[in-house]
């Protein structure tokens, strides 16, 4: 039961002042949300707390007594524990081994691993927050993302040295389903009740408003807002993050850009991955959302439309002809694709901006397909970059040095470059800050206004409702229906994802 206070935290990388006089107080039994756009300094603050990065100036006190924080060992001794978005588990080991990875393994005769004791201790740790459905003997790699998160948490709680008093959770729900997130919130409530302080970093506004007791917003490395949650609101937080009042979060269609009559894409009886019987028709300029629980098959449907996955069954018709059979053919026929994992599937991180943007368009930008024109490629990259409001220092900098939001804009610039007739967007705003989200939404609207048919997935339900014309719901391994987005509420959509019958029949 301790209060951790940081004051006057300064940190610069060269000339860039990343954190400027940041004060932060974590009270026991409180969830403290830390918010800010990408690049506002959240990650640096977390790294300072973890002892990975040294602050230039900082006073750290526990219950008023000044303490030292000069390395990860100090952070651990202060009772700080970290849960990152990327979960550090060893997929080939069992759940029990992962939970007790950093502990002394129980032995028999001082030599052989005492597997029974190992499992019992792991099961204990899991049971402490009701995760009894996880088998300690199961291979950790086979767990769902949510169960992995619980495994990591159990591992932290199983620590028998200093009792943890501060948990730092960095975007813990980014990869979780709604049910898994709910279980995590239950764990957080339990930790809170035991007197732990929780520093909770998330882009998901609704979540933060629901679970945090107090919020601190960073903007450009300085504290822009810090108050109890009851004294502010979603609008207040967004205003503090962006420095400007919130316009409409989801830009609406401009006059005269309603979807046309022509069918761009016709999908019938499509079965791929975990889903069967997906059928819809997409009109010119229409935005169709695909909603479902995590792993319900949204990504697979998009990959199938791209021609990158073989269909178990079904017909895809693109512009009157059979659908593409490879990603190369798809791009060639005017299909643009924004993959779910931009770092692993979207970008050449070590390369500069221009090659990343023009990659699918090399043929078009070359002379007769034989001769590349470097200048034309750079001009194209710059023009598309402007279109998506990409922020960079020089066109030659590697995309690894861009913020997450700007990396996503590079992937978007690539997608809009060919004025595609069909755009497939898999979680287009995943891990993207509020400001960049607005730019991406505007890009999607612009695409749709030029007649591009858009199919997008998102686990952010308000985003789907705000952006899409219709939403296709995947539930229980099949298409549960297609509903008009206008007038839909998140709660209603969620209920349909969980299996309530949609009000309207299949369109």
């Amino acid at each position: 039961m301790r209060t951790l206070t940081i004051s006057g935290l300064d940190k610069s990388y060269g000339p860039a002042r990343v954190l400027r006089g940041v004060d932060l107080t974590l009270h026991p039994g409180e969830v403290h949300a830390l918010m800010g756009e990408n690049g506002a300094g959240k990650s640096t603050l977390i790294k300072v707390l973890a002892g990975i990065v040294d602050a230039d100036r900082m006073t750290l006190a526990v219950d008023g007594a000044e303490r030292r924080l000069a390395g990860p060992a100090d952070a651990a001794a202060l009772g700080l524990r970290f849960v990152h978005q990327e979960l550090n588990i060893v997929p080939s080991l069992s759940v029990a081994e992962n939970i007790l990875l950093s502990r002394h393994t129980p032995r028999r005769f001082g030599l052989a691993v005492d597997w029974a004791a190992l499992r019992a201790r792991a099961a204990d740790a899991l049971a402490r927050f009701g995760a009894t459905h996880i088998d300690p003997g199961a291979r950790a790699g086979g767990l769902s993302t949510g169960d992995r998160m619980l495994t990591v948490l159990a591992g932290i709680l199983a620590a028998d040295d200093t009792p943890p008093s501060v948990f730092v959770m960095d975007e813990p729900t980014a990869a979780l389903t709604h049910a898994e997130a709910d279980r995590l919130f239950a764990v957080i409530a339990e930790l809170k009740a035991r007197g732990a302080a929780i520093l909770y970093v998330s882009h998901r506004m609704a979540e933060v408003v629901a679970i945090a007791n107090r919020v601190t917003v960073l903007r450009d490395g300085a504290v822009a807002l810090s108050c109890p949650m009851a004294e502010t609101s979603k609008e207040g937080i967004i205003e503090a993050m962006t420095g400007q009042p919130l316009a409409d979060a989801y830009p609406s269609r401009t006059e005269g850009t309603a979807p046309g009559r022509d069918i761009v894409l016709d999908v019938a009886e499509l079965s791929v991955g975990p889903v069967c019987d997906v059928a819809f028709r997409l009109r010119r300029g229409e935005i169709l959302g695909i909603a479902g629980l995590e792993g319900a098959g949204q990504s697979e449907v998009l990959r199938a439309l791209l021609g990158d996955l073989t269909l178990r069954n079904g017909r895809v018709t693109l512009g009157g002809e059979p659908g593409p059979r490879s990603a190369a053919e798809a791009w060639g026929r005017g299909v643009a694709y924004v993959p779910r994992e931009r770092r692993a599937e979207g970008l050449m991180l070590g390369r500069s901006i221009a090659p990343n943007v023009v990659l699918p368009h090399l043929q078009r930008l070359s002379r007769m397909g034989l001769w590349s024109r470097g200048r034309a490629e750079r001009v194209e990259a710059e023009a598309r970059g402007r279109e998506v409001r990409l922020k960079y220092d020089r066109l030659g900098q590697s995309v690894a040095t861009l913020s997450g939001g700007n990396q996503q804009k590079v992937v978007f610039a690539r997608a809009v470059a060919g004025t595609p007739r069909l755009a497939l967007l898999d979680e287009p705003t995943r891990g993207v800050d509020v400001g960049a989200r607005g730019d991406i939404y505007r890009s999607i609207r612009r695409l749709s206004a030029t007649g591009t048919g858009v199919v997008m997935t998102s686990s952010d339900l308000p985003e789907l409702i705000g952006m899409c014309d219709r939403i296709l719901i995947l539930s229980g391994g099949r298409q549960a229906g297609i509903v008009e987005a206008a007038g839909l509420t998140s709660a209603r959509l969620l209920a349909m994802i969980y299996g309530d019958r949609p009000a309207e029949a299949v369109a």
Partner: protein
Amino acid sequence: MNVAVHLRRYGTLAGFALMVIFFAVNLPDTFLSARNLLNVSQQISMLAVVAFTMTVVMSMGDFDLSVGAMASLAGVVAATLFVAGWPVGWAIAAALGVGVVGGLLNGFLVSILGILPFVATLGTMTVFGGLAFVVSDGRTVFGRDIPAGFSGFARSGLELGEWRIPALTLVALAVLAVIWLVLEQTPYGRRLYAIGGNIEAARLAGTRVKRLRWLAFTFTGMGAAIAGLMYASRVASANPTQGDGLMLDAIACVFLGMTMSEEGEPRVLGTALGVLLLGLLDNGLTQMNVDSYIREVLVGTIIILAVASGSLGTLRRR
């Protein structure tokens, strides 16, 4: 950019310059003479051709261990066909054909079957090496069996005023020009670098990864065959192991070149500098009567130093 990045990019160049100065001071009359430099250019021409084509597969993040064995094989194929009475042109075409087929085989194993390049080309290296013995019956073909028209090529050259550019040097320069055009100036080359940057992203962005990767291996097969023929022409003989040493040196040259490129990727002009560096080092040490085994030790050390200075830039970030 920080100091480490500069050290990485310019460390190799600075070392290169120091080496040239060292030899120029110690061998004042000979080392920097036009004659010696032209001689070096001929000595390194075979290695250069293999290294340039190796750059193509390494731009995709792959490599080809079979090039040395392929060079030997192409040499003995041509020589054996000479003995069988084939015309020079046809024998050369057949040897180059063997190179293309070998390259296609490597590409098939790596790209279509998905075998790691290390394992696949290690396998074909052994196969090609064995075939070279089978074809030649383990003997060296030399003397009157090698037509004068073939061995004369390596001795010919282009008269330019008082200098004479050796024909083999011209071949290497031609290969350099072709590879530079392919890698730097065509959509094909851009796509190979994209594959090297992130193979999954390249595929999802519409790159025909399998086909391109497959075809790229024909460059190394062909380059190795050309180098094998150049070698056979130069020494007017062919034996089943004479090209084997090219593989490690060629990969080393590409690595040396990579340390000099901005994004740490293989660029063919960088490879050319790497080849020059190794060639001049070899030449200087020979002139100073340094034992050839010492030379091996030095070459290995230089490569490790160059690549280690390259990883300096990344070490600090961990």
